[in-house]
């Protein structure tokens, strides 16, 4: 259950910090934190299942964790490759300086989108498969279990739901600011697509993501032996016929239907488009309707920070963002600035004080360095004696 709590907190904070990042790679890195949290949730639920002797819970939990590890490896690699191509092409990972790259880097954009869908656990990506297992394990424990385990699993479900929603918001933000709209800077305008070798790498990973999403039962069958080993104490129970990798078959059907429907609607749409009532070819492409405002510039687009602001407001108490700004004072303000950053609580509250304490202790110990060798030897001897007295003597 400790693992469960740790997983929940890690995942929730990871995704919240990710949401606040301005840099593409940092954002992805924080999502790694989130996904490790989800894996921990799966393991925690699996452990609860083993302890309480529920084979279904245990197998689903561990299978979810293992599948998520695999899936995370796939889509995170894909996303980092995509981010790498972006940084390579534009020279910056600052999201608010990018934009409109879907036009200039179509291949990277598609691959990155597949990665986004997968990491947000949206069907038909592979992330959904593993999160679904963790969900189901938590639900199974919540309906069948008792006591604190049950409450913990209820909370795990809620945590997963919150994480899912926030992750979707975060990747919508990332993809939208980097690839959609108009370029926000010259560097972004001059981007070019990744070379073929990189494209192939991304294509392979992207198709692996979709493949697992559409054939989850095959993936489950692949990890099954390992999962059964982890669920060792329940070995006899896991051989029962109701514990099978066929649990995932339903998702397979649904994902296939989803893809088929998507393609069908797309084709239908394409078939309908030329036959317009007016009969003329579509007019010149026009600018986005700006509600009558004529002097629209790309700098007026919604930025990634603005996108995340409402959620930042909701979780203000948790994140403690730092906002530094100069409000425009006069009618013609010279340079109003706005700067926001969200310091990582793990860093400011946990690591920094700990390391500061370490350094201070080390400083104090410096005194020892300056005393003569004999005294140092005496210290060693005294320590040894003290340890012996403490451990051995009584």
């Amino acid at each position, binding site marked *: 259950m400790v693992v469960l709590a740790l997983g929940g907190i890690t995942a929730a904070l990871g995704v919240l910090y990710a949401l606040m990042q301005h840099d593409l790679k940092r954002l992805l890195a924080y999502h790694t934190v989130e996904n490790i949290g989800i894996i921990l949730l799966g393991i925690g639920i699996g452990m609860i299942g083993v302890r309480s002797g529920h084979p279904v819970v245990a197998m689903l939990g561990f299978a979810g964790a293992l599948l998520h590890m695999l899936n995370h490896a796939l889509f995170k690699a894909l996303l980092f490759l995509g981010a790498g191509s972006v940084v390579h092409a534009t020279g910056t990972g600052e999201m608010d300086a990018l934009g409109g790259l879907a036009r200039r880097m*179509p291949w990277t954009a598609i691959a990155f*989108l597949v990665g986004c869908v997968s990491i947000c656990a949206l*069907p038909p990506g592979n992330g959904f498969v593993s999160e679904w297992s963790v969900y189901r394990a938590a639900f199974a424990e919540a309906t069948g279990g008792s006591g604190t385990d049950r409450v913990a699993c209820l909370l795990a479900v*809620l945590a997963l739901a919150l994480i899912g929603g926030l992750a*979707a918001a975060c990747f919508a933000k990332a993809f939208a600011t980097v690839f959609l709209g108009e370029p926000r800077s010259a560097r972004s305008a001059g981007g070019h697509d990744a070379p073929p070798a990189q494209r192939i790498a991304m294509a392979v990973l992207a198709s692996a993501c979709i493949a697992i999403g559409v054939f989850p039962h095959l993936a489950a069958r692949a990890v099954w032996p390992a999962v059964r080993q982890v669920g060792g104490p329940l070995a006899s129970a896991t051989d029962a016929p109701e514990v099978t990798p066929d649990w995932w078959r339903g998702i397979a059907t*649904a994902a296939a239907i989803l893809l088929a429907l998507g393609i069908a609607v797309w084709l239908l749409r394409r078939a309908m488009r030329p036959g317009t*009532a007016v009969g003329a070819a579509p007019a010149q492409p026009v600018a986005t*309707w700006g509600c009558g405002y004529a002097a629209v510039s790309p700098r007026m687009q919604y930025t990634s920070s603005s996108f995340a602001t409402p959620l930042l407001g909701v979780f203000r108490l948790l994140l403690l963002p730092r906002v530094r700004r100069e409000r425009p004072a006069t009618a013609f303000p010279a340079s109003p600035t706005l700067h926001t950053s969200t310091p990582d609580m793990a860093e400011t509250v946990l690591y920094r004080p700990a390391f500061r304490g370490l350094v201070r202790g080390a400083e104090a110990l410096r005194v020892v360095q300056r005393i003569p060798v004999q005294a140092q030897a005496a210290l060693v001897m005294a320590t040894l004696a003290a340890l012996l007295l403490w451990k051995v003597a009584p």
Partner: protein
Amino acid sequence: VSIGTTILHVAILLTAPPLVGGIIARTKAAFAGRRGPPLLQPYFDLVKLARKGSVYSRTTTWVFRAGPVIALAATVTAGLLVPMTGAPAPLAFEGDVILFAYLLGLARFATILAAADTGSSFEGMGASREATFGALAEPALFAGILVLALGSKSLCLSTILGPSLHALWGAIGPALVLVAVSFAILLLVENCRIPVDDPNTHLELTMIHEVMVLPLCRDPRAARAPDGLRRRGRRRGRPRGRSRRGRGRRRDRRVGDGAPQDEPRARTDRRRSRALDGCDRGAVHRRGGAMTFLTNSILIASVLLSVFALGTSRVGMTIRIFAVQSFVLAALPLVLRGGPLGFHEILLAAGTVAIKVVLIPRLLFRAIRDVSIRRDVSPLIGYGSSLFAGALLVVLAFAVSASLPLPSGVASPLLVPASLSTLLLGLLLLISRTKAVTQVVGYLVVENGIFLFGTSLVVEMPTLVEMGILLDVFVGVFVMGIVIFRINREFDHMDTHNLTALRD
């Protein structure tokens, strides 16, 4: 699942949804005193739109065009999971609830990206909002699903919503009422309906709906014509002033439930939704029939009303909520009694109603009229945060009372947690508000909690003691009223915050 039902299912799925839009438009019109468009108007619109060409902004890419396609495909797939024909859904398996939620998530994701693809800050704003609401709605949705899953011991929509649902109402009726209410709120949130958002009145939100429709229409000017598309109630030609006001209210709207709004329209809507809640409860009662159901409903209502009081900024509203809560609670001893009513019980109930429902609210209303305050504008803890804290307190109350040594013969297992929650929520109200009147209401809510606690020991508690407490409260409020009045006369305001600045 037979082929016949599958075909029927798909047919319903593909043809029925626009009808809902037509019904909504008619209902809305009826409430506004108009006749409204024909019921089948959305179908006409769709046919008309299908014949039109398209205009795409030069900013947009294939993502924009894929948005509606993905959203449609995802929604239809999700529709295949919901039982509609009485038989199980065509696609039913254990765990499909989760898939259902995430398919809708996919549709939302596609919409957000399509909106952002236009590169306009308006659409960006709408997209950001959609993402925010979505992220917050997800846990609420899953909390409801959890209740359903716990009740029906299943994770399959066809089982949850299947024939066993009927039995479930009898077993965990009050919980289902809560789920129904929260789903109704979610429905309003996700469909941008009035207490949360009103697509008719403010611009930025309209824009995202425009994104939903734009790929289908050819001429941007045609889109603006009011008779063109009534789908999703979009109409852009509204003056901008309203949109600004809408933005000013955004902080309130984030709260979702019980968000204070000053528009009369919003008020009627909320009233309507409450009426809906009421008739739901009536229906449930007829089905459940048991007395415990009534008791539980009263207890839940008491807690919910306290939460509601936490979420509103209008002082008059909090007073009214307190009155309703007291009224509901006054009925509790009568319900708990079960058998023939004695003179004492009726006297007690009548006394409670007279003092707490009539006298005290009247006193308080006079007080706020005299000092002419209507809103508690600067609470120490914001409305959103205090709602969240309130939820935590309710959880705490339920967790604690599980291990509390309960007196024997407590009428309902909900009684003690409900009373503790009411008490804690009242205290929170007392802590977080600055206006003296709201604090008085907080104090009164605390008293209601104590009253509730007392009812759990109603057998041991002599009527005289109860009367004494009632009198105590009355005197207390009376004194407070006088003090408020005095403070106001001396200092021209009644913000207790400023009392700390006093020095002797």
